[in-house]
């Protein structure tokens, strides 16, 4: 995996931020026969540059929400693969984004009080296919006012609102049924909760360990896609509420050989060992016989320092033969609750 792919994923991450910034916001679908209504919305984004390897941005996916993002991509330790980590801090926007105002408190981590200053450049875009209405208008400019935020342990700190910004005004649209954007969630938690991997038809070995206690969700997956070289894709998601805000942390990395070892398909008791590289440390073992998730696995990363082992963890292990199980690994017979979903990188940012 070369630097080209690294750049690609960084680009995708930025694109994900932009998607979050230009999402449907508070669109609410009103089904009326063959048509539905996508409500008007305003979204905004402020790029705050890079600090200690993290790209920082403030995103307003709709008028009610403000999210600080910190995203970092680098080469994974011990392999040619990629390592990608992100943090998202979500709070309510108490300002009127329609008028360019953002006011939000992120507990002890920071606050913003900003007003958008248009720079003069305006772009208009026709409604998406299947919808009709006025053009969407994007104003480019800057935010002025107060902004201060620091990550846990001060792993990044921003105190200036300087940076490129954009405000996107999406008018009310009349859309063919199924063409309107999905409405944004009301719960803060949903903005950092990963979407499910309930049907993974590429992995022939998949391990999922998770725990959910005191409102905090920790989920880690390790997957080996069919035909790929030795190694495994490891994803971690941590979601926890704080007073007035919700914090989400995620890690994606392409681990080297030895990251995930399992028993053969059909073997009982099924066993697995997970030993991902940094920012993880240690390793964990699972046995179907005892249902125990043991070892010293943990993660030590900026903003995230915690063990990933313990009796509270529940574990799913799936090892299939692709000639017998063409659908690959599937943990869930129905969609799991949002907090019990394995981590998935891109959608987590939306």
């Amino acid at each position: 995996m070369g630097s080209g792919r690294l750049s690609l994923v960084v680009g995708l991450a930025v694109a994900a931020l932009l998607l979050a910034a230009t999402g449907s916001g508070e669109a609410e679908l009103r089904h009326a026969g063959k048509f539905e209504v996508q409500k008007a919305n305003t979204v905004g984004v402020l790029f705050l540059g890079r600090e200690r390897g993290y790209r920082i941005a403030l995103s307003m996916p709709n008028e009610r929400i403000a999210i600080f993002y910190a995203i970092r991509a680098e080469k994974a330790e011990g392999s040619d693969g990629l390592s990608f980590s992100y943090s998202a801090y979500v709070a309510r926007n108490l300002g009127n984004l329609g008028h360019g105002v953002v006011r939000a408190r992120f507990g002890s981590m920071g606050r913003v009080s900003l007003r958008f200053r248009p720079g003069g450049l305006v772009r208009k875009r026709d409604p998406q296919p299947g919808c009709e209405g006025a053009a969407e208008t994007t104003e480019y400019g800057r935010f002025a006012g107060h902004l201060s935020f620091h990550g846990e342990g001060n792993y990044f700190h921003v105190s200036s609102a300087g940076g490129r910004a954009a405000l996107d005004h999406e008018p009310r649209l009349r859309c063919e049924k199924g063409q309107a954007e999905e409405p944004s969630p009301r719960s803060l938690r949903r903005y950092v909760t990963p979407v499910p991997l309930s049907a993974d038809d590429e992995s022939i070995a998949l391990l999922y360990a998770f725990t959910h206690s005191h409102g905090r969700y920790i989920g880690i997956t390790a997957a080996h896609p069919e035909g790929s070289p030795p190694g495994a894709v490891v994803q971690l998601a941590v979601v926890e509420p704080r007073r007035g805000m919700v914090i989400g942390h995620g890690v994606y990395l392409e681990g080297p050989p030895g990251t995930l070892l399992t028993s053969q398909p059909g073997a009982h008791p099924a066993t697995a060992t997970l030993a991902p590289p940094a920012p993880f440390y240690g390793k964990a073992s699972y046995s179907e016989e005892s249902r125990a998730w043991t070892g010293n696995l943990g993660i030590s990363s900026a903003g995230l320092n915690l063990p990933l082992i313990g009796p509270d963890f529940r574990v799913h292990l799936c090892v299939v033969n692709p000639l017998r199980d063409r659908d690959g690994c599937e943990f869930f017979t129905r969609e799991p609750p949002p907090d019990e979903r394995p981590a998935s990188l891109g959608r987590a940012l939306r």
Partner: protein
Amino acid sequence: MRMRWAVAALALIALLCVPGGAGAKAGHGGPPAEQWIDVALEGSNGYAIHISVNPRRHLILQVSKEGFSAEYMTRDLLAEADRIKARLLGLGTISVRFHPHGPVRHPLLPGCGRKKRPAVQPGVVRGTIRFVGEREYTQVKVGEAEAAIEEPTGWLCRYGVRFEPKPRQRDWVSKFSTVGVGTYLLARKYRPGVFEDGQVIFLAETGEAFDRDSDRPPLTIFRHISVPAPVSTFRDAHPEHLILAPPPPFSGTGTLARTPESVFTWEGDLSVQFPGLDPIPLAGPGFGPEYCLRGSGCVRQDVDG
């Protein structure tokens, strides 16, 4: 695979040179773009040798015996339809002229119908034909040989080429293939009774290409071996584990196994020996395996590089 495709592409280019029109009579007076020359020879050690030159002046010298064949492909240095002049990079030279003998014939070929009959002018070539296979596995040196100039009506209706029937594609039940640098191995297990002499066919191919330089024309050598074998040589009762132990000219065994990393490895001492060459390994880290079960799909493993 890359080498195999390169060789296949060369063969295809050669085959595509066959014209569609059948207006001209076969013989040395016809337009050169319409005709093939075929020369049949007997090499030493029981090998049959067949030389053919297509209308684009690509020359193929094919050596065959039982399930083995080797094709040495180069360019005919002359443009005339009734003459051949070629050098085979240290393996021999060909410099002959065609002399017709007897009337033009229109043989009926299997599957080609009466309207697709080619025009074949029998005769002899005279001059020099000298070929010595690698490490002298076969050789021939003659001043005259039976030959024909043929005007085919389609690329499948060539009198000078024998298309041998193969077991039908739909009759295999499982198969394994692997590709290394310049080598290819295919093993197919068939339903019982599809063909005689066993239930499995092992096929190995290898290709070498020597580029043209200022002193010599290009030469491509394509070797192929196909042998039937009993079902015991293809052991795949467990889809996570396969063992191939083909008969000579193969030797050793190859094993496909799933590791705790869920990677499918293809390892062992399996090799194939083509006449005149050292044994060529057919298993190891550089080989990307693919195993298929009819109706279930395939397992494929990528290899680095």
